[in-house]
């Protein structure tokens, strides 16, 4: 049982920067950034290839720079070429498939055998034993979360938040939305790529299809986390990403081991969670309307019997 929890914790933390990136792009900037899938593999490919040539540490910032570049391209297509943001993300994502294959030396799968990774190096310091992987990931994730929260409180961060909140107001207060959207998407994709970079080195492998559906899983994690922490502030949003990611992996692990839900069904379930959660405000509105309609009808019936109909 402890082993299951540990695995869930490990995977949850490793993947938690994806929901955190989506928190920035989807929640803060209000853009559904579909660059995510390809960007995750891009980060993993760069980091694994760097580890393969003996530069695992350098591979991490390089992977982030690669992710930021992918984000920049999406932002450029969206803001300058006026392509809708969803399509801009899909375009970059599609192009990245080829780029990723190229980075991986035109092979669909690269493995690191007996090569040093940031994890093996950290483990060789020999003071945390089995938990060193979890601790290192936690350190990185906590640092990123702290930097993100702090950044969103700066002048530039506030401008980015306002861009997603009220673009009319942003234009009237001397902020250039092209600039804020670009910075936001670069940062978000750098986080996604960092997640990919950690996963790649942790699992010592990268697969060209390793990012498929990760944007939906990330959204599910974010939404799960938000139900747990609330979504009123930036701090809560960033924490929700981490908490949600861990909860999701625990659910995943429980499914895997108990076979309550066959694992093959998990992506369908994930998709359903995301669809329902995002549709929730609309569903609630619909329910309220139905209730009002019923009250109206029963109220009228009450009025016909001689009441005033207001109490119904």
């Amino acid at each position, binding site marked *: 049982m402890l082993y299951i929890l540990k695995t869930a914790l490990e995977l949850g933390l490793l993947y938690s920067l994806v929901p955190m990136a989506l928190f920035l792009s989807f929640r803060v900037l209000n853009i559904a950034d579909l660059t995510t899938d390809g960007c995750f593999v891009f980060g993993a490919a760069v980091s694994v290839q760097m580890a393969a040539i003996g530069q695992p540490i350098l591979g991490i910032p390089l992977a982030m720079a690669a992710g930021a570049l992918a984000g920049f391209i999406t932002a450029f297509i969206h803001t300058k070429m006026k392509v809708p943001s969803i399509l801009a993300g899909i375009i970059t994502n599609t192009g990245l498939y080829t780029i990723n294959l190229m980075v991986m030396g035109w092979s669909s799968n690269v493995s690191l055998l007996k090569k040093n990774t940031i994890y093996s190096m950290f483990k060789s310091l020999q003071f945390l034993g089995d938990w060193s992987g979890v601790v290192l990931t936690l350190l990185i994730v906590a640092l990123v979360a702290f930097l993100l929260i702090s950044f969103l409180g700066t*002048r530039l961060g506030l401008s980015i938040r306002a861009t997603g909140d009220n673009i009319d*107001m942003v234009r009237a207060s001397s902020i*250039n939305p092209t600039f804020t959207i670009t910075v936001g998407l670069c940062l978000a994709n750098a986080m996604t790529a960092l997640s990919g970079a950690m996963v790649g080195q942790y699992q010592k492998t990268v697969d060209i299809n390793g990012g498929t559906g990760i944007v939906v899983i990330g959204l599910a994690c974010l939404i799960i986390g938000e139900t747990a922490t609330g979504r009123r502030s930036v701090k809560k949003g960033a924490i929700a990403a981490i908490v949600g990611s861990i909860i999701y992996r625990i659910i995943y692990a429980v499914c895997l081991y108990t076979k309550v839900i066959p694992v093959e069904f998990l992506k369908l379930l994930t998709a359903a969670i995301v669809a329902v959660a995002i549709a929730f405000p609309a569903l609630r509105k619909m329910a309220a309307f139905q209730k009002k309609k019923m009250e109206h009808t029963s109220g009228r019936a009450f009025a016909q019997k001689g009441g005033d109909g207001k109490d119904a």
Partner: protein
Amino acid sequence: MEKMLDVNEISVTFNPGSPDAKQALNKLSVHLDDGDFVTIIGSNGAGKSTLFNAVAGSFFVDEGSIFLGGQDITFLEEHKRSRIIGRMFQDPLKGTAPSMTIEENLALAYLRSAEGTSPFSHISGRDKQLFREKLAMLNMGLEDRMKHQVGLLSGGQRQALTLLMATMVTPKLLLLDEHTAALDPATADKVLELTREIVGKNHITCMMITHNMKQALEIGNRTFLMADGKIVLDVKGEERKGLTVDDLLEKFKAGTGKALDNDRMLLS
């Protein structure tokens, strides 16, 4: 003396070359002195808001030029112009970011002055003190709610906050597009009073669109009447002082050959 705002024969046509083509502004010129407070009235579709959008840079004009404080801003981008132009709309929701706090909204407005400060700097204690003092001027108790989200405020409070934000850093020009029209009468009066106070105190050059004819004559020192993308009447000084709403309607008819037609126009 140099004018504050010089709009020289600007024209704007929407959907040019299509059956829907509409010339919204037709070789329109405006020249404002420093400290002028102009009220603008006109029929539906006279080009009042288009004039504001053209001056603020929401789109570029087809011909003509715009100078503000001696600077040619004809092709300056909107977000750059908004450093020197404050703007308010009729919709109180347009001027503020709802899910951010009052303090954060004010900080955004204050960005305009923050030339030279690092984009990575946080809101300082001194900024907060300044925001608090400014908010206290509104007399709405907002200074004690700086950490509250703006989405929780009433329309009137949001509009008052927007006014504060638009004038936080004294703009060279303030554009008010029926900024009290969506508020209840008491709140509208209060926001209008605040507008007069702030504009007067900081000697801001200002243009205000209104559909209240009486207000148009009471406030400010000049009144424009617009029709068909042109300013058909520009009254100021002595001529304006004795003017009544009826005189204004008559002048409009004499100038355009049509009655003033605005479905929301208040005559009293």
